[in-house]
């Protein structure tokens, strides 16, 4: 039964990336540089959380489990950490707004390409989620680009953004790193191609955007096909579970 497992792992990697990225964006509520940005970035985070919820539903579908709220919560929050398949880029705790903005641009530019890979998926539900998500991604990218257009034109801001790119850049290969199960997902038509192939266009887009390509180390730099967690993961999961843990049986 390697086939459903492979597809499950593929969908989990996608869902976990969206879930953690959404969480990271929403953590800016109240502390982003100005009020409008504060609302915008957390609203974009909610879009990503919405994608995560739909992708987790697909995982439950595959397992033959009804997608009730407790089942979704258990999947999203209750797995042992080595069952997560997120990349280290979305686990990373940024140290300032510049890093968060650079990651926002990198992630959403990648995400739009990633949804295109499943827009014609053999899983009809996944294809329909992709169509919806792609419309949203166009606006997420416009948001990041509009901010960067303005900031990269100001010398001090530009310097800080390029410094942030030095920090975020090495995590970009990990974002494009597929899980083991991706091969099954491609073979069964769930996905049209590998996320590895998105690295080159992403680097090119980054070069055009920043005038500098993100630094890249070797493709395998410790994620081991997304099966390992970075040091930032546990504290992040604890923050995500903070309310949930007060009363795991509660009906919301």
């Amino acid at each position: 039964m390697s086939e459903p497992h492979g597809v499950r792992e593929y969908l989990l990697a996608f869902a976990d990336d969206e879930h953690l990225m959404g969480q990271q964006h929403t953590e800016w509520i109240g502390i982003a540089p100005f009020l409008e940005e504060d609302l915008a970035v957390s609203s974009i985070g909610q879009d990503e959380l919405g994608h995560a919820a739909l992708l987790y539903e697909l995982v439950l579908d595959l397992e033959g489990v009804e997608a009730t709220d407790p089942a979704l919560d258990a999947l999203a929050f209750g797995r042992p950490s080595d069952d997560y398949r997120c990349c280290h880029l979305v686990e990373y705790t940024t140290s300032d707004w510049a890093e968060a903005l650079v990651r926002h641009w990198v992630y959403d530019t990648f995400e739009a390409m990633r949804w295109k890979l499943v827009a014609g998926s053999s899983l009809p539900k996944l294809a329909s989620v992709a169509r919806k998500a792609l419309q949203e991604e166009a606006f997420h990218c416009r948001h990041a680009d509009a901010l960067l257009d303005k900031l990269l034109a100001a010398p001090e801001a530009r310097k800080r953004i390029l410094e942030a790119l030095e920090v975020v850049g090495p995590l970009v290969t990990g974002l494009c790193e597929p899980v083991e199960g991706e091969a099954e997902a491609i073979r069964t038509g769930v996905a049209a191609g590998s996320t590895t192939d998105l690295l080159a266009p992403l680097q090119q887009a980054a070069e055009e955007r920043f005038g500098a390509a993100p630094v890249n180390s070797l493709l395998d730099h410790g994620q081991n096909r997304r099966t390992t967690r970075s040091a930032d993961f546990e504290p992040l999961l604890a923050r995500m579970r903070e309310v949930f843990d007060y009363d795991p049986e509660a009906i919301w």
Partner: protein
Amino acid sequence: MRVYEVFVKKDGRNEFRHVGALEAATDELALVLAREVYLRRAEGDRLWVVRRDHVVAAPGDFVDPNADKPHRHHDGAAVAARRMAARQSPS
């Protein structure tokens, strides 16, 4: 940063209504921020943002005198009374 006034048109309605304002550095940022700040719950289907300094605003006392012109408010009572009188008078 500039201040932009935000107008939203609801689905199925003709008129744009003022919903608030925001600060943004460029027109494009004003649009993308307004979309997330004022329309994320589908509050409307069309959006305008207008730079506040592009609004042609009348001074505060510009329309004040019009507040005291009772002769412009007619409920038709005087006309009705005259018509009634005309109908009842033998002609």
